[in-house]
């Protein structure tokens, strides 16, 4: 359980203190949240040390609402790079020393800063603009002069003569509407620039006007392949904050569902990777078997993709009568199928050549970018939240955290394939022992969270999914932030793909396995 105490640092000392914390071993920037406290604007940083496991939460704020400026920490943690751009886009806070101060999610001609409390959301201010967005080849950056004045400089991303191709937003390999601008030298990638926001739905802002039970509805749609996990994280965060106890039965059910969802997601990963690499038949194999999990979900939750299952204090409905039998049958069915996957794809010489040694992400970079999940574990970083901060009943089951050290595409692929097996083991240990009990704890009709800030994280399909809630004691959150699992992966792609070929970019994107609605939120 992460301490919810926040250490406030004045702006002037912010950068130095952060550097100091980094030197003390806090090498993992878990999340960086922009905040509007009404009178001041600032950021909240969740830091973690990967060696000791210690957590610390710090914040800094500036009173200047007209021209808010904060020093950047993107030179300390690479993860801050995109997160600070996000904060800039949503709150208008300019980060001094940040190399790239463009809005991350919104169009450059967007009026206002939507997550500020005084934002004017009327459609007249920001109508649907049907003009094509201008693509900038250079970005503004702010540097502090020797005399303490702020100076705007221009940082050139792509020179005039470069052969820049545009991959996305509508491209079969980006798994959604993500856009890369890639500068090529023949087939080799020289530079890559990520453009997000094509599916930015403003979920965090919407949550601020919804009651806590209502906010649950939106989490499933963040990363629809980790619907269970996302909702689990939010429920857990609210339960911890409001002091709601959930029964053992619920914990068991949630854990089993999480693992089923993980298998589902990894099967889809397998399918999509195969499709990206051109092995279409394997794609269909993965989807065929995924349907069986969806059947199980359907029996209990009623939905296939958007499940709406977890609730605050329990789950929506008790498990279906044939749930246990079906899950057992499924596990018995999947084991030989996995072998077939390995026969068809993993052991194929072309697949090996396409994946091995391609797109290497080092352990240091993975930590610095905060690339959790299979990507981090493939690089040798033991970042599994289930082991780091056990929740549900993960402390009661025996499972292995799959670790590889190569950090290449093949390692990422193998981590996921082996995690399917581990997930099946977890389910097998739990499925026969689901204790009796209520599936829903009685809660007050209106759920309120005591004033303060709370953070809870789960291991979602593609990394750590965290929920940060700042509450002022109302029935809806003051600020709700979701730590995206995909954003760190996308921020790392520029580093991974440099020097690779276009075809490798597809393999890298496939093995990073990001889900775009989760990045853009």
């Amino acid at each position, binding site marked *: 359980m992460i301490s919810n105490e926040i250490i406030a640092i004045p702006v002037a000392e912010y950068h130095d203190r952060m550097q100091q914390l980094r030197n003390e071993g806090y090498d993992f920037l878990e999340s960086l949240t922009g905040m509007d406290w009404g009178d001041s604007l600032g950021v909240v940083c969740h830091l973690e040390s990967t060696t000791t496991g210690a957590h610390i939460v710090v914040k800094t704020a500036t009173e200047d609402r007209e021209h808010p400026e904060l020093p950047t920490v993107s030179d300390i943690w690479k993860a801050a790079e995109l997160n600070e751009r996000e904060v800039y886009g949503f709150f208008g806070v300019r980060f001094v020393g940040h190399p790239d101060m463009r809005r991350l999610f919104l169009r450059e001609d967007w009026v206002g800063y939507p997550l500020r409390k005084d934002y004017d959301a009327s459609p007249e201010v920001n109508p649907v603009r049907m003009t094509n967005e201008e693509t900038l080849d250079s970005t503004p950056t702010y540097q502090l002069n020797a005399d303490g004045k702020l100076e705007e400089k221009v940082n050139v991303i792509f020179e005039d003569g470069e052969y820049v191709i545009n991959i996305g937003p509508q491209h079969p390999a980006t798994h959604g509407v993500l856009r890369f601008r890639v500068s090529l030298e023949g087939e080799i990638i020289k530079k890559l620039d990520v453009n997000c926001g094509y599916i930015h739905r403003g979920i965090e802002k*919407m949550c601020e006007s919804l009651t806590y039970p209502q906010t649950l509805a939106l989490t499933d749609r963040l990363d629809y392949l980790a619907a269970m996990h996302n909702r689990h994280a939010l429920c857990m965060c609210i339960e911890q904050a409001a002091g709601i106890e959930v029964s053992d039965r619920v914990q068991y059910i949630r854990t089993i569902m999480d693992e089923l969802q993980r298998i589902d997601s990894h099967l889809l990963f397998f399918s999509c990777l195969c499709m990206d690499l051109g092995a279409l038949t394997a794609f269909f194999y993965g989807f065929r078997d995924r349907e069986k999990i969806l059947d199980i979900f359907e029996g209990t939750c009623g939905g296939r993709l958007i499940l709406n299952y977890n609730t605050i204090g329990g789950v929506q409905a008790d498990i279906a009568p044939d749930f246990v039998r079906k899950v057992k049958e499924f596990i018995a069915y999947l084991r030989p199928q996995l072998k077939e996957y390995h026969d068809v794809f993993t052991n194929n010489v072309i697949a090996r050549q396409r994946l091995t040694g391609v797109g290497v992400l080092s352990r240091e970079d993975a930590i610095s970018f905060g690339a959790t999940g299979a990507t981090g574990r493939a690089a040798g970083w033991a970042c599994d939240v289930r082991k780091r901060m056990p929740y549900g009943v993960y402390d009661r089951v025996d499972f292995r955290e799959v670790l590889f050290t190569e950090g290449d595409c093949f390692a990422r692929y193998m981590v996921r394939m082996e995690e399917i097996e581990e997930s099946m083991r977890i389910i097998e240990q739990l499925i026969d022992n689901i204790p009796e009990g209520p599936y829903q704890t009685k809660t007050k009709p209106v759920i309120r969270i005591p004033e303060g800030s709370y953070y809870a994280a789960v291991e979602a399909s593609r990394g750590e999914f965290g929920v940060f809630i700042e509450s002022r004691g109302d029935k809806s959150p003051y600020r709700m932030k979701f730590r995206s699992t995909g954003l760190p992966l996308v921020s790392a792609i520029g580093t991974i793909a440099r020097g690779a070929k276009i075809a490798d970019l597809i393999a890298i994107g496939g093995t990073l396995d990001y889900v775009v609605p989760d990045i853009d939120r």
Partner: protein
Amino acid sequence: MEMMKKPQIKSMKYEDFKDNETLEKMAAELRAGGTNVVVGCLDEMIEWGRSNSLWPLTFATSCCGIEFMAVGAARYDFARFGFEVTRASPRQADIIMVAGTITHKMAPVLRRLYDQMADPKYVVAVGGCAVSGGPFRKSYHVVQGVDTILPVDVYIPGCPPRPEALLYGMMQLQRKVKVERFLGGVNRKEPKPDYLKEK
């Protein structure tokens, strides 16, 4: 004179479809002037070909896209109906399945994709978000239904729609294509909506 032919689709009865009135009205309007036999037969053949060969564009923005893939996959297999070849290039696609939320930043891109497609082209709005904005209707960055920027032929509600619903919607589109006229009569003559007018 009853010249209207009911748009039939193999394996599902006419009566089993909902919203037949719209189609019948559309057919009656299109055939108001009557057609000559040769042209009419040729027309029927062309529309038979078109309706059975609707190639979708690989386009998806969020959750509905996964269900769209599921419809293409082994269990539901829309290749049976001739939607087989999903094309990644808009030039070669016939329908755009708007699967998922359309945001302000995506709207001009989607419009451009639609403009890049070759005629005849059809739009299917898949899921609550594309139909009306769905759960994100109140958001500051979401387009309130894709019909504000594109002419939509078929709406498939759901969040996300089940694969069966997707198939049903695509079959409705087939029926709609079947009553169209390529040569005879007036083909899709509608007043140009505001959003399609040149700025």
